[in-house]
C-alpha cells in the first residue's frame, strides 16, 4: 500500500527527561521517527522537554516544542498546530499515558487528530492489566493468576486466593515503579499501599509469583496489511523475579528448541492481533516453566521500548524507523532493508553472533537505598556487547560496563575479587549463598566464586535459578582459566594458549593478571603503601600480554552485523570484534576521525555526551571527513548504524580501542566528547601512539592537576578558593583551620562528587576523615574553602587557539556547593551586573587561551561578594552543551569539531556572546521515587539522572515550566507547608508574604509559624511528627498540602524533616529544599497566576530572536 496522502502533519510526543526505566532509547526511537517521517515528506511537530536529545535538534522536526509534556500543554500545541495525526508509540510510557489523557479530555476528537501506530483501544488493552488478562484468556493463553485491587481492603482478600509470594504491580507506571514481591502476610498491606500510591489510577495487580521461571521477550512488528514479523528473541539470564531492565539478557534466545520457540512466536502474533496494535513494534514478555515448558504471558508493550532499542542494535534492524514508516501506511514489503539493500524489511533477522546486555547500577550514589534486585528497575544504564560465542560476548559485556572490571573476574580488581576470596577462604559460605539467593548487582561474580569453590551446577541452580546452560558457560570460562594457568606455568605465553583464551573473551588485563597472579596478590597484600606499585604493575603485565599478542599477530578481526547471517552482501559498516579467522572491515583511504563515545549511561555521564558525540559525527560528515564511532551503549543515537560512516560496537577500554585504531589507522581521535570514559584513557592512548585531536591531553592534565592548575590561575591573576592537599589527619585539620570553615572536602581519587562533603566545624571534619575518606599518603584529601551563599556560574565556550566564543553564561539557581548537575540553571544570568558578565567573559577568554584549548571548554565559577572565583575548568564537552545549543541555536559541539579540524571561529561568524529576549531554565530530574529511604537533600554528590528545559519570555514562567517538565506541578492555589531554618526565615519573608497576599493558605511548624505570624502573615501551626496527631504527614496523606518548602537546619539527621521529605516524594508533592529554589518557585507561581496562561513557542521561533 502506498503511504497515506490524507495526512500531512504529524505530532510526535517524546519521552521527556531521562529517568530510571526511561532513558536514551526514546531519543533513539524519536529521532528515527522524526527523520523517517520527514524523509517521507510529512510535516513533523515534536514535543519533548528534554534538551539533551538529538530529536529536539532544530532540524529534526519542522517545529519543535521544548515544553513540559502535560495533557494541557500538548492540547495547546494541538490547538495551534492542528496536526492531522499523532504518533504515540515512540515516546515510551510517557507518550502513551499522555495520549490516553488527551483522549479522556476529548482533545483528539475536538481537534480531529487521528492516532497512528496504535489506537486508544489497543493501548488500553495492553496497558490496563484487567483488560490485558481478559484478552489473553480470550485467545486461550495463560497468564499468572491475579487479582486487581484499588484499595488495601480489597487486596486483603487475595491472600486466600493466591499463594505467597505475591507480586504487586502498580498499573500505568514505568520501569515497574512501586512494584514489589511480598513474601509474608505482615508486609502485605504496606506494600499494597505503596503500589497504590505509585499508580496514577490507584490500582495494583496482585499476581501469582513465577519466581525462577525462565524469562523471554519477543520483539514483534505488524503492518497495516496484517503482516507480522519477529525481529528478535531475547532470553533473560536472570530468571523471573528480577526486572528485565535489571537482568543480564542475551539475544537470540539460547535454551529453547525450535518447537518451543515457535510456540512463543505463534503466541506473539496472536497477541499483537488480539490487542490490535495496527502498525509498528511491540514487545511481549513470556515466562516459561523450566520443568515442563508451560508458558505464561507476562506483559506487552504496544510501543517501541528499551528492549526494541536493544533488539535494533542487536540485529541491525531499525525497529523505530520501520515503525514510523508503517504508521503512515507503508507495508513491510514496501520498505527495503538498508543493510542488504536488495532484500525487503519484511523478514526476520537472523544473527550469527551472540549479544549480551548487562545493566549498570548507581547504588553508591544513594546511601540507604535497598540494593536488592526485584520487580522494580533500579539500574541507570546498560552496556551491550557482541561476540561470536556467549563466552566471548559475556566477557566483553562485563568489561564494557566500566565498573573497573575487565571481564568475568580475574582482572586484578582486588576490591571485589579479594572480598569474595576471603569469604571463601574464611568458610563464609553463608554470605556467598546469601548473595546468590538474594540478587544484588554483583551477583554474577558470586556465581563465579561458587564455581571456583567447586559447587555443583545443581547447587548453583537451586540458589540462582540461572539456567544450567548459562552456568555451564561460566564454568567453561573458569575451566579455561585453570587450563591456561597450568599451561602458562610450564610454557609461558604461547600463541596457542593466548589464542584459546582470546576466543574465550579474556582481555589482556585478565591475561596479565592470571599470568602473574601470585606476584600481584603478594604485592596487593602489602597493603595501602603498595597500591600505586600494584596498579602500575597491573598495567605493565597487561602491556606485556598485548606486546606478545601483537608480535604473534594475534589480533581481533572485525565482523559485520548484517541482519542475515552472511546470506547476503551487507553494505552498512557496522562491526564488532572477535577472535575468529576473518577481518571483514575494509578500511578506506579517506581522511577519517574516530570518536570515542560515553559507554553505558550512569549518573553524571548520560545522554548529553551522546548528543555531543553524534554532533561530532554530523560535523565530520559536513566537512567530508569519514567518521568512525566507537560505543557500547545500545540505547543511544550514536550506536545507530547510520549516525556515523562506520560504527564499532565495542567496549571502551584501552585494548579494544587500540585494536580498532590499528585496524582503521584514523587521522585522529576525539576523546573530549564522550565524558569521563574516553578522557580517562586519553593519556594512555597517546602513549600508545594515538593521535588525539583538539585540546591536547597535556592541556587536559594541566586543567585537572591541582598544582599545575593553581599556577595557571596565578599567572592569569584570577582567584581560586583557598585550598590544600592533606596526607594526614593533622594536615587536614591544619589546612582547614588555616583557610577557615566551612570547607569542601573530598578524596583526591574519586570522580563525580563521590564522597564529597561540606564541613562546618572541626568535629565533623574528624568524623568525615574517619568514616568517609580512606585517608593515606596514597589517598590524600583535597580541602577547599567553601564559599557559602555564593552564586555558581557555568560557562560553555569555544576556542580556536586565536579567539574565544562564549556560548553562554549560566547562573545556577541553587548555591555553590550543590553539584552543578543537580542544580537548576538559567540562561542568560538574571542577577549579574553587566560588569561581572564582562569579567566572566574575559576570564574565560584568558583561561581558554592559556590552556591552548581547541574546541570546547566548560568553566565553573563562584561569585561571592563581587569576587569571581574559578572553581574548575574542563577543556572538553560538558553536560550543559546541548542545553546551551538548544537555547541559543548555536550547535557548539559541531563547531568545536570543525575547530579541531583546523577551521576558525570567524568562519562561523562567532565572536560576541549571543543576545536574546527570552529566558531558558534547565532543571535536574532526580530518581528518589525509586530509592525510598534515601534523603532527597541536594549535596555536592550528583544524583540526577536527567534534565528538562523550560523556556519562555520571563524567568518565573520558565522556572515554572522547568519544574512542571521535571514532574513538579507548582500550585496556583491551595496550601503550602513551611518548615524553614532560622537563617532563611527573614530572607524568604517577602516571598512568603506574596503567597499569603495571593490567597494561599500557609501552615508551618511552630517556630516558622510564629515568625511569620509576628509579621502579620496568617500562618497556622501544625504538629511535627513527634508531637502527636494529626500532624503534617496526615495532612500530606490527605492531599491537603500542595507544596512544601523545607530548608534543612545545618546538621542533617533522620529528623522530622526527613520524614516530611520522604512523604513528599511518595505523594509527588513539589518540595523545595533550598531557599533559592523556593524563591524561584514562588516567582514562577506568581507570574503564571497573574497571566493565567502558559506561553508556548517552538524552538525554531525562539532561535529567530537570537542576535
Amino acid at each position, binding site marked *: 500500500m502506498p503511504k497515506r496522502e490524507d495526512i500531512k502533519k504529524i505530532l510526535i510526543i517524546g519521552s521527556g527527561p531521562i529517568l530510571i526505566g526511561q532513558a536514551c532509547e526514546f531519543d533513539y526511537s524519536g529521532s528515527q521517527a522524526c527523520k523517517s517521517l520527514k524523509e517521507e515528506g510529512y510535516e513533523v511537530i515534536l514535543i519533548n522537554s528534554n534538551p539533551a536529545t538529538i530529536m529536539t535538534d532544530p532540524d529534526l522536526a519542522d517545529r519543535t516544542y521544548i515544553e513540559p509534556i502535560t495533557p494541557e500543554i500538548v492540547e495547546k500545541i494541538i490547538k495551534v498546530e492542528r496536526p492531522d495525526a499523532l504518533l504515540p508509540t515512540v515516546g515510551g510510557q510517557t507518550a502513551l499515558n499522555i495520549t490516553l489523557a488527551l483522549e479522556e479530555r476529548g482533545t483528539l476528537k475536538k481537534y480531529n487528530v487521528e492516532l497512528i501506530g496504535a489506537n486508544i483501544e489497543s493501548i488500553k488493552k495492553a496497558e490496563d492489566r484487567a483488560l490485558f488478562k481478559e484478552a489473553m484468556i480470550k485467545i486461550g493463553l495463560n497468564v499468572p493468576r491475579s487479582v486487581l485491587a484499588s484499595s488495601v481492603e480489597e487486596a486483603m482478600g487475595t491472600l486466600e486466593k493466591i499463594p505467597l509470594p505475591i507480586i504487586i504491580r502498580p498499573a500505568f507506571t514505568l520501569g515497574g515503579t512501586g512494584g514489589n514481591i511480598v513474601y509474608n502476610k505482615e508486609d502485605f498491606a504496606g506494600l499494597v499501599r505503596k503500589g497504590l500510591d505509585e499508580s496514577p489510577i490507584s490500582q495494583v495487580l496482585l499476581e501469582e509469583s513465577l519466581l525462577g521461571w525462565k524469562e523471554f521477550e519477543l520483539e514483534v512488528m505488524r503492518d497495516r*496489511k*496484517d*503482516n507480522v*514479523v*519477529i525481529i528478535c528473541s531475547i532470553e533473560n539470564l536472570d530468571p523471573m523475579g528480577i526486572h528485565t531492565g535489571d537482568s543480564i539478557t542475551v539475544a*537470540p*534466545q*539460547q*535454551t*529453547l*528448541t*525450535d*518447537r*518451543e*520457540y*515457535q510456540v512463543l*512466536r*505463534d503466541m506473539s502474533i496472536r497477541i499483537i492481533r488480539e490487542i490490535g496494535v495496527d502498525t509498528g513494534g511491540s514487545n511481549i514478555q513470556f515466562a516459561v516453566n*523450566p*520443568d*515442563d*515448558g508451560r508458558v505464561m504471558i507476562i506483559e506487552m508493550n504496544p510501543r517501541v521500548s528499551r528492549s526494541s532499542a536493544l533488539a535494533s542494535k542487536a540485529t541491525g534492524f531499525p525497529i523505530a524507523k520501520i515503525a514510523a514508516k508503517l504508521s503512515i501506511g507503508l507495508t*513491510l*514489503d514496501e520498505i527495503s532493508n538498508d543493510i542488504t539493500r*536488495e*532484500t*525487503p524489511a*519484511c*523478514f*526476520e*533477522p*537472523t*544473527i*550469527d*553472533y*551472540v549479544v549480551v546486555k548487562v545493566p549498570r547500577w548507581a547504588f553508591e550514589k544513594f546511601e540507604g537505598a535497598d540494593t536488592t534486585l526485584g520487580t522494580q528497575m533500579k539500574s541507570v544504564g546498560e552496556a551491550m556487547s557482541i561476540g*561470536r*560465542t*556467549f563466552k566471548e560476548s559475556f566477557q566483553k559485556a562485563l568489561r564494557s560496563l566500566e565498573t573497573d572490571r575487565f571481564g568475568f573476574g580475574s582482572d586484578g580488581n582486588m576490591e571485589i575479587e579479594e572480598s569474595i576470596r576471603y569469604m571463601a577462604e574464611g568458610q563464609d559460605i553463608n554470605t556467598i549463598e546469601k548473595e546468590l539467593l538474594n540478587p544484588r548487582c554483583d551477583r554474577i561474580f558470586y556465581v563465579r566464586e561458587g564455581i571456583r569453590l567447586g559447587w555443583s551446577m545443581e547447587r548453583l541452580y537451586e540458589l540462582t535459578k540461572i*539456567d*544450567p*546452560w548459562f552456568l*555451564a*558457560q561460566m564454568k*567453561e570460562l573458569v575451566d579455561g582459566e585453570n587450563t591456561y594457568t597450568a599451561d602458562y606455568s610450564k610454557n609461558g605465553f604461547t600463541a596457542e594458549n593466548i589464542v584459546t583464551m582470546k576466543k574465550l573473551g579474556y582481555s589482556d588485563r585478565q591475561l596479565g593478571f592470571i599470568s602473574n597472579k601470585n606476584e600481584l596478590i603478594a604485592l596487593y597484600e602489602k597493603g595501602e603503601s603498595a597500591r600505586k606499585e600494584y596498579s602500575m604493575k597491573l598495567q605493565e603485565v597487561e602491556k606485556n600480554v598485548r606486546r606478545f599478542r601483537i608480535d604473534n599477530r594475534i589480533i581481533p578481526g572485525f*565482523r559485520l552485523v548484517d541482519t*542475515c*547471517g*552472511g*546470506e*547476503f*552482501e551487507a553494505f552498512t559498516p557496522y562491526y564488532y570484534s572477535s577472535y*575468529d*579467522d*576473518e577481518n571483514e572491515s575494509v578500511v578506506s583511504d579517506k581522511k577519517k576521525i574516530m570518536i570515542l563515545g560515553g559507554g553505558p549511561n550512569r549518573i553524571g555521564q548520560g545522554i548529553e555526551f551522546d548528543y555531543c558525540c553524534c554532533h561530532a559525527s554530523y560535523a565530520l560528515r559536513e566537512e567530508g571527513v569519514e567518521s568512525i564511532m566507537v560505543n557500547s551503549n545500545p540505547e543511544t543515537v550514536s550506536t545507530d548504524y547510520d549516525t556515523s560512516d562506520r560504527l564499532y560496537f565495542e567496549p571502551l577500554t584501552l585494548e579494544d580501542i587500540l585494536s580498532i585504531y590499528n585496524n582503521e589507522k584514523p587521522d585522529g581521535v576525539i576523546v573530549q566528547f564522550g565524558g569521563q570514559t574516553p578522557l580517562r584513557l586519553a593519556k594512555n592512548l597517546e602513549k600508545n601512539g594515538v593521535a588525539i585531536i583538539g585540546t591536547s591531553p597535556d592541556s587536559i592534565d594541566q586543567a585537572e592537576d591541582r598544582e599545575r592548575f593553581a599556577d595557571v590561575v596565578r599567572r592569569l591573576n584570577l582567584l581560586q578558593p583557598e585550598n590544600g592537599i592533606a596526607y594526614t589527619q593533622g594536615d587536614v585539620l591544619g589546612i582547614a583551620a588555616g583557610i577557615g570553615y566551612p570547607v569542601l572536602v573530598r578524596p583526591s581519587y574519586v570522580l563525580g562528587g563521590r564522597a564529597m562533603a561540606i564541613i562546618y566545624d572541626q568535629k565533623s571534619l574528624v568524623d568525615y576523615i574517619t568514616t568517609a575518606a580512606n585517608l593515606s599518603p596514597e589517598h590524600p584529601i583535597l580541602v577547599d574553602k567553601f564559599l557559602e551563599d555564593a552564586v555558581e556560574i557555568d560557562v560553555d565556550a569555544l576556542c580556536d587557539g586565536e579567539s574565544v566564543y562564549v556560548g553562554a553564561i549560566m547562573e545556577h539557581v541553587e548555591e555553590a556547593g550543590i553539584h552543578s548537575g543537580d542544580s537548576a540553571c538559567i540562561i542568560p544570568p538574571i542577577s549579574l551586573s553587566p560588569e561581572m558578565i564582562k569579567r566572566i567573559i574575559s576570564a574565560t577568554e584568558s583561561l581558554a587561551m592559556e590552556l591552548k584549548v581547541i574546541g570546547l571548554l566548560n568553566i565553573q565559577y563562584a561569585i561571592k561578594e563581587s569576587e569571581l572565583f574559578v572553581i574548575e575548568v574542563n577543556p572538553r564537552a560538558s553536560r550543559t552543551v546541548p542545553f546551551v545549543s538548544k537555547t541559543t541555536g548555536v550547535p557548539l559541539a559541531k563547531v568545536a569539531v570543525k575547530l579541531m579540524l583546523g577551521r576558525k571561529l570567524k568562519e562561523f561568524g562567532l565572536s560576541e556572546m549571543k543576545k536574546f529576549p527570552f529566558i531558558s531554565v534547565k532543571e535536574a530530574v532526580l530518581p528518589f521515587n525509586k530509592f525510598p529511604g534515601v534523603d532527597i537533600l541536594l549535596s555536592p554528590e550528583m544524583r540526577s539522572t536527567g534534565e528538562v528545559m523550560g523556556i519562555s519570555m520571563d524567568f518565573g514562567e520558565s522556572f515554572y515550566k522547568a519544574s512542571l517538565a521535571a514532574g513538579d506541578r507548582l500550585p496556583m492555589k491551595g496550601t503550602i507547608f513551611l518548615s524553614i531554618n532560622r537563617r532563611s526565615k527573614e530572607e524568604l519573608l517577602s516571598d512568603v508574604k506574596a503567597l499569603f497576599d495571593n490567597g494561599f493558605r500557609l501552615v508551618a511548624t511552630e517556630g516558622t509559624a510564629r515568625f511569620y505570624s509576628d509579621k502579620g502573615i496568617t500562618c497556622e501551626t501544625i504538629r511535627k511528627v513527634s508531637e502527636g496527631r494529626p500532624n503534617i504527614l496526615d495532612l500530606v496523606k490527605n492531599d491537603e498540602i500542595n507544596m512544601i518548602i523545607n530548608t534543612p537546619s545545618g546538621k542533617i539527621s533522620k529528623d522530622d524533616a526527613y520524614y516530611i521529605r520522604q512523604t513528599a516524594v511518595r505523594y509527588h508533592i513539589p518540595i523545595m529544599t533550598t531557599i533559592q529554589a523556593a524563591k524561584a518557585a514562588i516567582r514562577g507561581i506568581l507570574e503564571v497566576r497573574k497571566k493565567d496562561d502558559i506561553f508556548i513557542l517552538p524552538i525554531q521561533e525562539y532561535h529567530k530572536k537570537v542576535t
Partner: protein
Amino acid sequence: MTKKSYLILEDGLEFEGTGFGSDMETIGEIVFNTSMSGYQEVLTDPSYSGQIVTMTYPMIGNYGINDDDGESSRIQVDGFVVKEYSKTYSNFRAVRSLGEYLKNAGIPAIEGVDTRKITRHIRDRGAMRAGIFHDKKGALKRLLAHPKMEGSDLASGVSCREPYDYGDKKDGRPKVAVFDFGVKKNILTLLVNTGFNVTVYPGSMPLRQVLKERHDAIFLSNGPGDPDAVPYGKDLVTSAVKEGIPTFGICLGHQFIALGLGARTFKLKFGHRGANQPVKNMITGNIEITSQNHGFAVDIESMKKIRDIEITHINLNDNTVEGIRHKKIPLMAVQYHPEASPGPHDSQYLFNEFYKMIKR
C-alpha cells in the same frame, strides 16, 4: 582429548577444527542454514541427504536432543559444521547431547571453525563439494572423486521401500497418497491433523498402482538432490495431470510438478536454507515468513509460459518462484516448507487449502 579435524572445500579452502560426533571421514555438498534454532530438525530432514550442513548460528547443541523433534527416524545429513558445539545442554525435553546423537548415528561433525567465513565463501562461490577429514593426506583427491550434486538422484536413497499407513485412520476421511522422496515427519503429521487418512508410498511407485487404493488426492513430498535426475518424479506428475486427481507438492515435489508441466529447474548458487525467508502470497498480497531448504529452483520464465498456471508465491529476497497452482485442475505446489520444523508456522494454511481442493 580433542581430536583435530579438517574441513576442506573442493576449491582448496581449508579449516582446522575439532572433531565431534563420529570419527569417520565424510564428503558431500557443503551448504549453510541460517536458522538460529532447530538443529535437530535440520539433522533429520531427508532433504539434506548428501549434504554437509553448516549452521550460521554459532552456538549449537544448547538444548540437546529430544525424542520428539526428529523429522525422520535418523540423521540424514552427511556431515555437520558448527562454530561452537555446546557440550552442556539444558532443556526439560532433552535426553542426550548432540555429540552423542551424532556419534551414535556415525555422522562426523566439526566445531571450532569460522562458520561465517565458510558461509560467505559459499555465498560468493556457490555450494560445492567438501569433506570433513582427520587425515589431510589425499583428502582433496578423494573429495574431487565424489559425484557432484547436479545430476544426482538422491531421492531414491531416502524414500521408503514399502508403502505404510501414517497415523490413525478414521472412516469417512479423504485418503491421500504421499509419494515419499524423503518426506519430513511433520508433513505427515499435518496431513493427518488436517483430516486426511495418510498412506505413504515409495516415490518411484507408479501412479496407476497407487490409485488402485482409491485415493482422493496425492501429495509429492520434499526430498534431496537434483529433480532432473529423477525422471519418475516428472512422469508421476504427467500421469496425475491426466487423471485430474487433486495434487499438492512441496519442495522437490514442487519441482517435479514444474517439470511435469513443462517448466525448467536450475541449480541456485547457494540455495535457500533457513527459517526467515519472506514469501509473498500473490493472491492475498500477504507475506509469509517461511522455512526453506532447497538448492534447486523453478525457472520463472519457463513457468510463465505454461498455460493455465498461476504463480501464487514469490520469494521477496530474489524473486524466485515459491508457489504455483493450476487454474483448471486441482493442482498446487510450493517450493518452501509450510510444515516448518524448524521455522515459522505462517504457511500451515496450505494444508487446509489442499483439503478444500478435494472437497470441491
